[in-house]
């Protein structure tokens, strides 16, 4: 990818008033939200990846008492997006639960919050490696992958160039470098052909986009959409460093 980095590709992007980054994936218009969610306005679809609900209690069951607030924090952020956008469809793009027994550990009020979010709209669980079976008691449809706005939505990005694919799984994060220092942020990453979403979960960590796991996925040096406080910052490959 370094050889490609020498010739810059002029990405077509714009910052919307709400702080979102407007980009084109294949032929589809996509809004990359500062929350880390994807908004496909044509279908009024809100897409979020890697919620990892109940990661805190998963660690607690093994003796590390992480604060039990990750699920409600993640759902609070999701609810804020739902209020702002009133989507017709919510797509959970896999690894919604941290492990296979997460749904059983869900607090009653958190489960109710999820049901409330699903009410009056379509909720689709695209299943991932952590939650291959989908929900047991919670509402929603289960799918391995999904076509929407001419895009293919699946949890794990497939190897090689995959035009029109939208995926999660890798938890992309960017180390953004400037003359005064560097910051590490979760990010979207796209080459205008495919898009990988950042993890949405409150405790979900990030993998640096310069990691080998991202190699070979993009046709050209990709553009990162780094999540700032209230907007997404478009950052080019040459401003991204290793950790």
């Amino acid at each position: 990818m370094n050889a490609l980095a020498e010739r810059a590709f002029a990405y077509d992007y714009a910052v919307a008033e709400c702080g979102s980054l407007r980009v084109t994936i294949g032929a589809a218009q996509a809004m990359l939200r500062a929350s880390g969610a994807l908004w496909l306005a044509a279908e009024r679809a809100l897409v979020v990846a890697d919620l990892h609900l109940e990661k805190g209690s998963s660690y607690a069951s093994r003796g590390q008492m992480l604060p039990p607030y990750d699920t409600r924090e993640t759902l609070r952020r999701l609810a804020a997006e739902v209020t702002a956008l009133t989507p017709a469809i919510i797509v959970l793009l896999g690894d919604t639960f941290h492990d296979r027994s997460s749904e059983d550990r869900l607090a009653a009020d958190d489960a109710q919050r999820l049901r409330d979010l699903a009410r009056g709209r379509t909720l689709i669980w695209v299943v991932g490696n952590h939650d291959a079976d989908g929900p047991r008691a919670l509402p929603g449809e289960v799918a391995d992958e999904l076509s929407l706005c001419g895009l293919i939505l699946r949890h794990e990005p497939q190897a090689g160039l995959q035009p029109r694919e939208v995926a999660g799984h890798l938890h992309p994060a960017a180390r953004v470098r400037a003359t005064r220092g560097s910051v590490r942020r979760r990010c979207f990453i796209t080459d205008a052909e495919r898009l990988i979403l950042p993890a949405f979960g409150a405790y979900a960590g990030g993998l640096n986009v310069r990691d080998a796991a991202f190699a070979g996925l993009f046709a050209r040096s990709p553009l990162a959409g780094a999540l700032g406080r209230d907007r997404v910052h478009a950052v080019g490959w040459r401003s991204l460093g290793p950790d």
Partner: protein
Amino acid sequence: MADSAGLPADLLPPRFADWFASRGWSPRAHQLAMIERARAGRDSLLIAPTGGGKTLAGFLPTLIDLASQPPSNGPTSLHTLYISPLKALAVDVERNLNAPIAQMGLRITAESRTGDTGISRRQRQRVKPPEILLTTPEQLALLCAWEGARLYFENLECVILDEIHTLHASKRGDLLALDLARISQFAPRMRRVGLSATVDDPEVIKAWMADHAKGGNDTIDLVRGPPGAEPVVEVLLSEGKVPWAGHTAQHAMQEVYDVIAKSRTALVFVNTRFQAEFAFQELWRLNEDALPIALHHGSLAAEQRRKVEAAMARGELRAVVCTSTLDLGIDWGDVDLVIQLASPKGASRMVQRIGRANHRLDEPSRALFVPANRFEMLECQAAREAIAENKLDGDPPRLGALDVLAQHVMGCACSEPFDMLRLYDEVTSSGPYRALPWEDFEQVVDFVSTGGYALKTYDRFRRIVKGQDGLWRVRNLETAQRHRLNVGAIVSPAMLAVRIAMRGGRGGRKIGEIEEGMVEMLEPGETFVFAGQVWRLVAVTNLDVLVQPAPGADPKMPSWGGSKFALSTYLAKRVRQLMYDQAHWSVLPADVREWLEAQRDRSLIPEEDEMLLETFARGHRQFMVCYPFEGRLAHTTLAMLLTRRLERMGRGPLGFVCNDYALAVWAIKPLEAVDFAELFDEDMLGDDLEAWLAESFMMKRAFKGCAIIAGLIERRFPGQTQKSGRQITFSTDLIYDTLRRHQPDHLLLRCARDDAATGLVDVARLGQMLARIKGRIRHSPLEHLSPFSVPILLEIGKERSPGHSGETMILREAEEDLIAEALQ
């Protein structure tokens, strides 16, 4: 009490008296006094300078007691426990103690036990303890967390705490005080013996080490050693060459080299690792005689440090450039000069460092202070005078930290079931926790058990559980084992291995380890000095810093390398006094005097208790420079808060810069008409501080430290050997953000706030300073910049410390770069 005249003559048994005589020595008064105190069954604190036979004084009562016991073939039990803050010191004392034991033909076993001791020896020591065990606070915490700790310590007669002055005011000191209270329960007869260098107020140390269930400070007798010869301290004047700013003292290197060439062995102390590397480079550049000059600091590979120490012990070196890693430790008799390169920061630390020269009481220690700039010249003179008058800075007494207490409570449960009320009484018998409210203790126990969350969902995962008998015990063996792997109150920063870059981006030979934060200052392609050579940074991979040799390149010197130690309150006061007292300026070299006179004529010199504040325009910017002399940390906090206020006042502040003496803020609009009394009002420590602190990276850093010590986050897991700060599998920043929103009063957030307030942002000091200058701000409106303001203005633009700069600014700048790239 230091006089032996009043002591009974038979204090020393014949075998010991003969031994002293055979060495040509006679026992010193304080050594006899310690025997006498032990005979009376009293706890004691011995205060004596280095080289006074202090350690032997601590051990003599034990040796006499053990020598008088009839020989027995039964198993030995632990008689005396010795605790040293340094592993190397424990090993050294083992050697020094075994010499007289062998020479007197005593049958006494004395062994060290540190993290470096082999597994088999450590296991044997648990089953069959030596009579004297020499160890560290961390190993003691571990011993206390083992099952059977009560039996192990039940016959303990004495605990000796060495170099207390370096430990008591820290989290390691908190942990040690708790373990002291613990073993007192196991061994009610145990005497406490403290050994300390000269301190400002012995009562503070007494309070730390005393048993407060038995009468506190009054239970401890103070024994003072002879004062020793006055140290001879000089300040290098470098007439006509003292620079306006900088931290490297490059101007003085030839003089420093010449002094080293004239001495037998010199220790050259600096304040940071970068300074150590720089000074080492410079001295070797001048080293035409090829004098054996070595380098020693915490980033070097351990084997390299051991090599330097061994060469030093053999008397093969002429100088060692070192950081605080050599502040205390092994006795090197041959050191005859201590050089302090750059600012001393505090009188007590200097006395400690100077004590490293001439470990013989009758000969004075010699020291040379080398200021790196003009303000440091004032600071060095003030430190020299403070030392001559025997005035030291005091450590403020501290309250025991709750994250440390959490670790201790878990350790207690791992050792044996505990009753909550009795454990509370035990904890509050220790110095740092003597004022601990019951509610806090309850909170800590709940934290240890379930994490202490208002949302009670973790009850079934409890780490400690209360049984039918009302006692708390650890959940299972695995939980106990994991706790023992994570004992200790030292949180080291994440370290990266520095390796030579090989083909294919792989790392080759390891040169040493470097703190993560230091690497963040460097960009690939930039050069820096490390382990005495110049390297070019190639890349940073997950755990490795890949470098190539770059001999001859001009290495980059990060400008933040001022000091990690803040200027002590006491020394700052003396600097202000020296500055104000014009009759006193004669001790300064001519160029520094002229600089002060120019300041007096063009701006003003404030009175001793005033704070000078200057305003002037320069270029398109409006400047405000003030000189509180309270250290970089307090200044940075102050600057953050002032900027917020100036923003609200509509002055449009653009940036700031701080050093140990001053801070400068610049803005779009003129600042001379600002109401400074309002700007500097103490109420800034209320909401403004809270709002800024909650978001600051310092809170996140403090939180991570507390989370590790309290056991919320484990550093090590069974079966895993690699030690690296990076192995935490989730980001503590994410946990901090979530916890702050959903339970802002959580115990660990409280701990983090206390830590940040006393350490990283120094709120306490800022509060005292704001009270001090209330109504005493001397405003000097100027046409041009003043002589005093030059050093701080020279630092603008050089500063690039991570975290201080706005994160949003970085993202915006990278975005502009993308736009520029697209428009190319």
